[in-house]
């Protein structure tokens, strides 16, 4: 074994170029294996965060009756850790009442603003408030009585009553992180826990239930136990997957990991095989000599394997280091350069740390695949070493089989015969070169698709479509229309039309037109207008503290028909949480911020109003519509830049692979070029021969790789593909890489004495 090792080291030291190329190829393969897994998992986490942020409900049951509701509330008080119940529009006539029979809710509320949190440990009419809710109720002492009341309004906006109940505070609990569903409906009971109540005289068609279930398995139980038919349920599958941890199974990126790894593996094996076989051919006489003087087949086998493994030992750590350097140093540098304050990256949406971590499992997996790649790559040259006759190896006489294979070209006397001489003479090597290029191009294009279309634009579009889902409210127990989705273009139009500053919009239809719009939490004025299917609002719900009897909105006076919380002129939406002075005044909600998005024209007025109420506080910030939109665009631009950085790396690697393969092949021809030079070929003629050979190989490879990539991409992306420009760019890059790969051999030919090149190659 020591002699084998010594021979191996001797060969590697003597053939420095081959050694460097091989190490480079192994390192690249290792880098690709590691980084591809890392990229997919990073994108996973980004998409997952996105889904979690935007998800509103796990399932929405469009039709239910009181019996079902009672069954749900009775039986699921234990199993269902969180349950949001939303009740639709109230009937326009008839008595309406609600009676809270029993509850174990951690949070419930009305109108999207009236939120309290709590749970009832046992006795009826007792409540344990969480800290936030306690702050809302001015931190009541234990045993104090609080009154929960919600206004009830008709579909036309008329106040038709109030639902209220009285509870004894039996404890203050830590704040629950859950946020209740905020709905525009005139009456909405929001509970993130168990709520049981009786609703009287509610028309059946007005009801729907939103479930936000944290033990997602209980969703299935709910359906099964209560006979809820699937066709009346709209599930938010993304959120269900995200909550259950099954996201990676349903993530369209995950299935790509295997084909990507296979493509990387085949490309790497071909490239390494090419390098090994070229090395093998260039040393065939030496190998023949060793066989003549007594090297056994087994020793020849070991020699090749030892060489391959030794190269792995050097190349794999280099590849690992590169992958970590790129993910751990380069990527954060790019992000920091783009976003020095970290405001775009270090948000609740994207965490820098999650973007730069390569897991230990990924490393082990990559090492295993890389070792297998190297061993598989050396199989062909090893097989040849063992099979060939030693004397023939030594004197380099072609075998009868090789003789028969020699092309009897009909081309004579043409310049083309020189160009195709090498290509047609060694068809295996030509096929190997073309295959390497095909896989490099395919690899690049598939990565391009995965990273750009499927991951950023595509995923965001998909997410937006989900968030902007248009659905119908069943009437008289029957569905008016099926659940449908709208295209992003339509969403954009809506965004423009209504001047939305965020992309969570829900539109509810009742068959005659849009019944209401819900934009994040509440959009007050438009809410009332739109609730009347386009007619003018009957009135507005004023903020608590507003003593006016009417409010002027867009130059029109609206009667105040109810009171909410505060008055902030120009504020058209409140994000995330209900704002109260008590909340802002206390430290019990330190992590919560209230963001006001206001029209550009009203910015100053809002700022003055907020400042007068709260003074300088970090608990709120004001952003104009323009600023908000710009921030979103910056956030997306940062993400895209990161993705394109990855792509640039992948593209460089693919090009290096192509250059590596062709450069190795070009070096084999260098002796023959020197002979041609000796008998009168000019450098430009040699350059033309080599360049045309490379372009031919690139062209042949592109003819295969472009359709192959297109099929793969369209299949994997469910029909969406890349633009023609991207294919053209990939083709141009490949041809340029092939041309560039020809240059070192040509330069070497020019710099070295011809006779030296002829004799030594």
């Amino acid at each position, binding site marked *: 074994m020591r002699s084998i090792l010594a021979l191996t080291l001797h060969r590697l030291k003597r053939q420095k170029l081959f050694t460097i190329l091989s190490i480079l190829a192994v390192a690249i393969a290792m880098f690709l294996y590691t980084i591809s897994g890392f990229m997919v998992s990073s994108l996973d986490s980004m998409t997952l965060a996105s889904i979690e942020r935007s998800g509103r409900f796990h399932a929405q049951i469009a039709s239910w009756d009181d019996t079902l509701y009672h069954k749900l509330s009775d039986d699921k008080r234990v199993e269902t850790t969180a349950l949001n119940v939303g009740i639709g529009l109230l009937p326009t006539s008839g008595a309406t009442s609600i009676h809270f029979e029993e509850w174990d809710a951690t949070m419930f509320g009305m109108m999207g603003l009236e939120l309290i949190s709590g749970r009832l440990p046992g006795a009826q009419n007792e409540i344990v408030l969480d800290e936030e809710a306690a702050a809302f109720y001015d931190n009541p002492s234990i045993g104090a009585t609080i009154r929960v009341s919600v206004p009830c309004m008709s579909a036309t906006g008329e106040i038709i009553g109030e639902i209220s109940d009285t509870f004894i505070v039996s404890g203050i609990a830590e704040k629950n992180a859950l946020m209740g569903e905020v709905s525009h409906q005139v009456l909405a009971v929001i509970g993130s826990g168990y709520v049981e109540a009786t609703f009287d005289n509610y028309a059946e068609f007005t009801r729907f239930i939103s479930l936000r279930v944290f033990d997602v398995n209980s969703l299935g139980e709910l359906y099964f136990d209560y006979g809820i038919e699937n066709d009346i349920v709209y599930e938010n599958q993304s959120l269900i997957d995200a909550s259950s941890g099954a996201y990676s199974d349903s993530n369209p990126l995950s299935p790509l990991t295997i084909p990507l790894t296979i493509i990387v593996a085949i490309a790497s094996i071909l490239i390494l095989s090419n390098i090994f076989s070229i090395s093998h051919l260039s040393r065939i006489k030496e190998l023949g000599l060793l066989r003549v003087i007594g090297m056994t087949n087994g020793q020849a086998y070991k020699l090749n394997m030892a060489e391959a493994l030794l190269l792995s030992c050097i190349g794999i750590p280099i590849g690992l280091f590169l992958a970590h350097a790129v993910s751990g140093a380069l990527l954060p540098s790019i992000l920091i350069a783009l976003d020095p304050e970290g405001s775009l990256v270090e948000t609740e949406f994207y965490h820098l740390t999650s973007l730069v971590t390569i897991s230990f499992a990924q490393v082990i997996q990559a090492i295993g695949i890389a070792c297998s790649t190297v061993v598989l790559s050396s199989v062909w040259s090893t097989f040849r070493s063992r099979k060939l006759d030693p004397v023939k190896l030594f004197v380099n006489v072609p075998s009868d089989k090789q003789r028969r294979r*020699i092309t009897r070209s009909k081309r004579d006397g043409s310049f083309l015969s020189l160009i195709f*001489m090498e290509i047609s003479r060694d068809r295996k090597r030509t096929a190997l070169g073309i295959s390497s290029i095909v896989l490099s191009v395919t690899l690049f294009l598939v990565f391009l698709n995965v990273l750009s279309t499927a991951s950023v634009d595509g995923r965001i579009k998909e997410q937006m479509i989900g968030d902007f889902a248009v659905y119908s409210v069943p009437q008289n127990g029957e569905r008016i229309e099926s659940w449908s989705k709208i295209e992003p273009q339509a969403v954009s139009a809506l965004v423009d039309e209504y001047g939305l500053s965020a992309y969570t919009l829900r539109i509810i239809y009742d068959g005659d037109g849009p019944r209401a719009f819900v934009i994040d939490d509440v959009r007050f004025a438009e809410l009332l207008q739109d609730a009347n299917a386009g007619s003018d609002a009957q009135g507005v719900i004023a903020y608590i503290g507003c003593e006016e009897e009417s409010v002027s909105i867009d130059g029109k006076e609206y009667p105040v028909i109810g009171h909410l919380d505060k008055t902030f002129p120009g504020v058209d939406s409140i994000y995330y949480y209900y704002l109260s002075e008590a909340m802002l005044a206390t430290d019990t909600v330190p992590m919560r911020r209230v963001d006001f998005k206001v029209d550009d024209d009203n910015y100053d007025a809002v700022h003055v109003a907020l400042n007068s109420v709260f003074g300088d506080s970090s608990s709120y910030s004001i952003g104009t519509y323009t600023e908000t939109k710009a921030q979103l665009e910056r956030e997306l631009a940062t993400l895209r830049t990161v993705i394109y950085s990855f792509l640039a790396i992948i593209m460089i690697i693919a090009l290096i692979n192509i250059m590596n393969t062709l450069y190795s092949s070009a070096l084999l021809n260098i002796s023959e070029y020197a002979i041609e030079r000796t*008998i*009168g070929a*000019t450098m430009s003629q040699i350059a033309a021969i080599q360049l045309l050979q490379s372009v031919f190989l690139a062209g042949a490879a592109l003819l295969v790789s472009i359709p192959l990539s297109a099929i793969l991409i369209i299949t994997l992306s469910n029909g969406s593909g890349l633009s023609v420009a991207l294919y053209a760019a990939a083709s141009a890059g490949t041809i340029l890489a092939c041309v560039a790969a020809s240059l070192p051999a040509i330069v070497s030919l020019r710099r070295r004495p011809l006779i030296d090149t002829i004799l030594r190659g």
Partner: protein
Amino acid sequence: METLIGVNESVYIYGNSEAAVTAVDRVSFDVPTNSVIGVVGASGCGKSTLLHMMSGLLTPSSGSITYAGDDLYKMKDKKRTILRREQFGFIFQAYHLLPGLSALQNIRLPLLLGNKPIDKDYENRLCQTLQISQRLAHYPSELSGGQQQRVAIARALIMKPRVIFADEPTGNLDTAAKNEVFELLLECVHSFGSSLVIVTHDESVSSQIDTLYTMSDGKLIHKGGREN
């Protein structure tokens, strides 16, 4: 006779500093037109290096090589390349045929590179003289050593060069083939009006060479041949 190639105080040193080896040491001589010049000597005496310098393949460390009065190594590379293609012919010990081309394609290669028309009569005469007319469709790997060398001679003569440089042209051949090839080479040179510079370690050919130089340790030490 007119001087075709002039070798003037030419030196070639391999390597540098302590490991430097002077392969050719201040050698001077002329190659007249229509002459056969031979350089003999033991292996490693520098004769091949001298031939490579004379033929424009290896730049001398010092001194100069002229062709028709012009310094070969002061010419631009392209001009020197065209000179090699049109005025010089090369024959190597290892033949150096291109394995991917047939014998005929190898012979025509200089014409192809120079974009010259094929003179079929001349080509046929050349192939008949060299007795390879029946082997033109074969590839180098399908030819014997003697046949390959005859193809190489045909390739060297196809452009009707003024000088042929032959580096141990019979070194890989057995005695019978060696004599046959050498005689064919001389016949061709005389028939087609070229000069021949031949490097060999076989002094038995001296009787057929006009001027024969003996080389030792990089220096020309003796001048012989038919003219002397």
